[in-house]
């Protein structure tokens, strides 16, 4: 048996030697410190919007063209976020469904730390890989990327129809069987198509929204996965068992019972992922080219609100028009992410309440 987790020996000396008055005084001081700590947290949340609002209001009016520039920046942020979510939402949600509903506990306990490591990798590193390595490749290989997006799901579905029955018993560890397959598909498509592709699609710039979407999407997967998986794991297994007893297949039970019940949690995952993508700075700063064009083409460059803040603020002096514009941009970013977080929090609270109410009396 391991040692006792709580140390008792030094416990009583200070208390035994103190008078009752002294102990009550310590109690009051302790309570005051705890309250002060909590007050600092509340203050921190309040001070951000108050400060940003005050710095804008103090020096109205805004310079000409501030709103149109803000519109372009917002469009840039939105374009980057959409490109990233197109990659991250399907991958994150599907991986979460697998982990929560199909995986063995052994696979789950190994898979989650791997995604936690991805979440821990600093985004400046992902930005570097996108900027220095992926960008030159993507500029010449857009066709390969499109082929990969089609080939991986198509070949997996074909594999499911051909070998699905044989692997049904290994369902809990299936990704380990499929990972080499996915890797082989990627290698085959990249090597086979790489030198032979026609220059049918040539992006105007190597640093574009598709590149941002690839790197930012990878960064957003862990958050979407963990929130969605949490929600799916909260679903009581009795529901699935009841459906199975009534003759449904496992997927029918998941599709018609688990997913609808967990919908608030999935919406929360989407909202938090979107908030993360909108606010992310380093990846967008390094991989987007930072050209302020309001072009919806995903192969064109963009400039996001966060990148504008990182690039512009060190040069802007406090009372100037540029400074106020940037403060307004920061406030817009804060409000956007705040609303998305609030939405996610309310959805999750709704889910918790629904779980607390017993369905079967």
């Amino acid at each position, binding site marked *: 048996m391991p040692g006792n987790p709580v140390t008792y020996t030094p*416990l009583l000396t200070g208390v035994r030697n103190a008078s009752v008055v002294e102990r009550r005084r310590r109690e009051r001081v302790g*309570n005051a410190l705890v309250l002060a700590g909590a007050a600092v947290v509340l203050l921190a949340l309040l001070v951000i919007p108050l400060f940003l609002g005050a710095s804008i209001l103090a020096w109205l009016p805004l310079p000409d063209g501030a709103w149109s520039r803000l519109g372009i920046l917002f469009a840039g942020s939105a374009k980057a976020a959409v490109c990233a979510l197109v990659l991250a939402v399907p991958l994150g949600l599907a991986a979460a469904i697998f982990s929560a509903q199909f995986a063995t506990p052994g696979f789950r306990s190994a898979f989650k730390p791997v995604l936690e*490591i*991805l979440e821990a*990798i600093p985004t400046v590193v992902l930005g570097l890989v996108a900027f220095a390595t992926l960008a030159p490749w993507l500029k010449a290989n857009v066709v390969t990327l499109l082929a990969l997006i089609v080939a991986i799901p198509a070949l997996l*579905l074909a594999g499911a129809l051909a070998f699905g029955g044989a692997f*049904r018993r290994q369902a809990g560890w299936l990704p380990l069987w499929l990972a080499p397959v*996915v890797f082989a598909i990627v290698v085959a498509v990249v090597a086979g198509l790489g030198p032979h592709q026609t220059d049918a699609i040539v992006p105007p710039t190597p640093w574009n929204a598709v590149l941002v979407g690839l790197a930012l999407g990878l960064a957003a997967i862990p958050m979407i996965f963990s929130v969605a998986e949490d929600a799916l794991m909260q679903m009581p297994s009795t529901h699935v068992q009841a459906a199975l007893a009534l003759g449904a297949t496992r997927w029918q039970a998941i599709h018609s019972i688990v997913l609808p019940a967990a919908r608030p949690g999935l919406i929360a995952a989407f909202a938090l992922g979107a908030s993360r993508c909108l606010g992310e700075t380093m990846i967008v700063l390094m991989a987007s080219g930072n050209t302020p064009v309001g072009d919806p083409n995903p192969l064109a460059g963009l400039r996001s609100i966060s990148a504008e803040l990182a690039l512009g603020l060190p040069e802007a002096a406090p009372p100037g028009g540029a400074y106020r514009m940037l403060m307004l941009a920061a406030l817009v970013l804060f409000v956007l992410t705040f609303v998305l977080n609030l939405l996610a929090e309310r959805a999750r609270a709704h889910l918790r309440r629904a779980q607390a109410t017993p369905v079967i009396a």
Partner: protein
Amino acid sequence: MKRTASGDAALWACAGAAATCLVAIVALLVWLGAAGLSALWPAPIVEIGFADGHAVLGEMAERRGDTLVIRGSERERAGGSYVRVDAHAIVSRSEPRDAFAITLHDGRRLFGRGDVAAAAALLRSIPNAEPAGVAEWPNAHGFFHRTAMFLRDAGRFLAGSTMAPSLTGGAFPALVGTVTLVFLMSLIVMPFGIATAVYLHERRGFAAGLVRSAIANLAGVPSIVYGVLGLGLFVHGIGADVDRWFFADRLPVPTFGSGGLLWAALTLALLTLPVVVVSVEEGLGRIPPGLLAGSLALGATRGETMWRLLLPAARPALLTGLILAIARAAGAVAPLMLVGVVRLAPALPVDGAFPFLHPSRQFMHLGFSVYDAALASPDALRGIPRAYACALLLVIVVVALNLAAIVLRNRLRERYRVLEG
């Protein structure tokens, strides 16, 4: 039949998504390791001959499609002697065993062929050349000697200074800046984080709910917004006031009124506060309620119980929170760009001169070095490998801290299983 087919398809789609994530993560980590290490691996010196008889001696800097870029002897300035070569125009390519390389103090590299006397002659022919070491013959050495050279270069990279404006210097100032910043940040965030967690653990009701949702929302605020707050409130607001009151004799040169270590640490403390609070509160929540009841029954007050029993019992959770906060802070670069990180700091933030820690100094940071080397380097073909080397170092630090947190968390669970049993 149709039902099972659609079930198989859905299962394979979900498993395929998980597999794709795994492949992407493994590929990313392998690529980072390979690119980071190969930046420090001694490159062979190649000699490339052309049809017209002339030859180029140098290091292969880049290969993209049919175009090779060779770095020849940099007689004038660093990054000034790249040769772009079409692969089809090459008639011969060799790695002569008598080729040598000399690294100069300012980061330049000189190449030549011959023995020690030839190297000395080459050095004499360059005006004011300061060699950083002796000449080397990398082509003549086998794998083990090259490994030894690699380890020596890695050591130089870790311990060398970048105080001189060179491209090839070490990452030591950036490492010291990162560690000092994170250490100061921990000192600020831990007391507040623990106090807030204790508050949330002990109180229920409207105010506690408000604090709880404030924590949840603070966690979702983008890091760049914290940077804006740090710049506007700490640097331009408080910092300017501090200067006016205490350092008026030095104005208009700002002391605390420009970005510096203290403001960056405060900004990061705000950024990591939610991580600490959530982790500590979870640790307190795991402690069996019998412990609290027993302590109260023996006559201890709530404060004494918290300070002497519950917080010591939650020590692993405090440590987990601290490690996660450090990992998050070490990876946050965007807010630092606004509150005091610089590409070349004139002095370290910690040194032997009183008061040893200089909170108003600007500092260097590993994450910012990655950004700066990749995007702002005057010599891009050296900047990218350097950025990868810094990135590998940063990832090793951050991933090691996170793995430590995961191991600690599992130990914590083991401990309380014993306590409950």
